[in-house]
């Protein structure tokens, strides 16, 4: 839910990194955390399982500076990718303003990507969030691996509504900020055009 506070002049919204297990959602957040000046980022909170995979969510608050004198603040979340954490994923989607789908480009993960997109759309539907109107970006991660499928194949299989597609190697930071920036643009454009909706 976009939250505008006129007295404190702040605008806050929530972006979620969604995708199958080990697709690189937490790696995206790790990279962002490592590159942000301390003054603009909050602490990185993670609740991992014993196998060090995300259990509940990773969370990081982030300040982006000012627009029209308003402080723009983001809350970045990842969801646990594993199939059996479906309940956690659904809880975290509550109040989401933008979704970055982090797809694993490897050929043997194609089905997992497709299943995760299906799961995302189903969960959004439960919250009555209109997927067609949601700020949504598709990130194709792990482009550096030899087992990565060609981009046109992944677009054909994974693109849902003509959303922007960004190539990434999150472990090296490639495409990470480009993806986030585009998502923020989408959300802010929706805030800008509130009147008349």
């Amino acid at each position, binding site marked *: 839910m976009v939250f505008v506070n006129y007295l404190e002049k702040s605008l806050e919204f*929530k972006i979620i990194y969604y995708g199958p297990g080990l697709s690189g959602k937490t790696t995206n957040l790790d990279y962002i955390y490592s590159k942000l000046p301390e003054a603009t980022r909050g602490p990185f909170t993670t609740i991992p399982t014993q196998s060090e995979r995300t259990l509940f969510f990773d*969370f990081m608050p982030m300040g982006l500076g000012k627009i029209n004198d308003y402080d723009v603040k983001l809350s970045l979340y990842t969801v646990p990718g594993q199939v059996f954490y479906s309940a956690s994923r659904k809880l975290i989607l509550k*109040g989401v303003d933008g979704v970055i789908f982090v797809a694993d480009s490897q050929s043997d993960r194609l089905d997992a990507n497709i299943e995760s997109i299906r799961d995302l759309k189903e969960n959004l539907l439960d919250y009555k969030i209109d997927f067609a109107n949601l700020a949504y970006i598709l990130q194709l991660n792990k482009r550096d691996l030899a087992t990565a499928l060609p981009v046109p194949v992944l677009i054909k299989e994974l693109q849902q509504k003509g959303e922007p597609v960004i190539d990434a190697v999150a472990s090296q930071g490639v495409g990470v900020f480009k993806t986030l920036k585009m998502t923020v643009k989408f959300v802010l454009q929706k805030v800008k055009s509130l009147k008349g909706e």
Partner: protein
Amino acid sequence: MDQILLLYENDYKSIKTVLNELKEACRARLIFMADQSGQVISSVGEITNLDLPTLTSLTAGAFAANLRVGEILGGEKFITLTSEGGMASLQLSLVRDRFILGVVFDTRTTLGLIRLKMTKAVKQLEEIFDGIIDKIEKEKQTFGGMESPFPEITEEDIDKLFGDL
């Protein structure tokens, strides 16, 4: 946009007043108001050296799980959640299905007093939030939409936010 909360000056002050009164009445350390997605709406009390956004996002997650557990067990939502510790305890309560009131307290007070005073505060907050939501709905109907605080925002403004990143 599916959901937006526009908090005008008077409403924000009204919320602060309720939180301040609650803090005094139940001798709490910290009172916070968040939405169910974990975003902080307001807070009063001892927040020095405290990471409030992380606290509210984690409590929102725990609270959402608690609501779901209630539905699974009896078909009704659990609308309060208590977490007791040695140094600090936390009492959460649902406000109008969309917001969470949280009270952090210690041994200077009792859970019974906290619960009693929270009941009154929740009612007051529900009236305030009803007014806010009514206002948003009326604006939508009267003017065909809400007034955006960023009507003039440009691509360049957004680019500037990210600087060299």
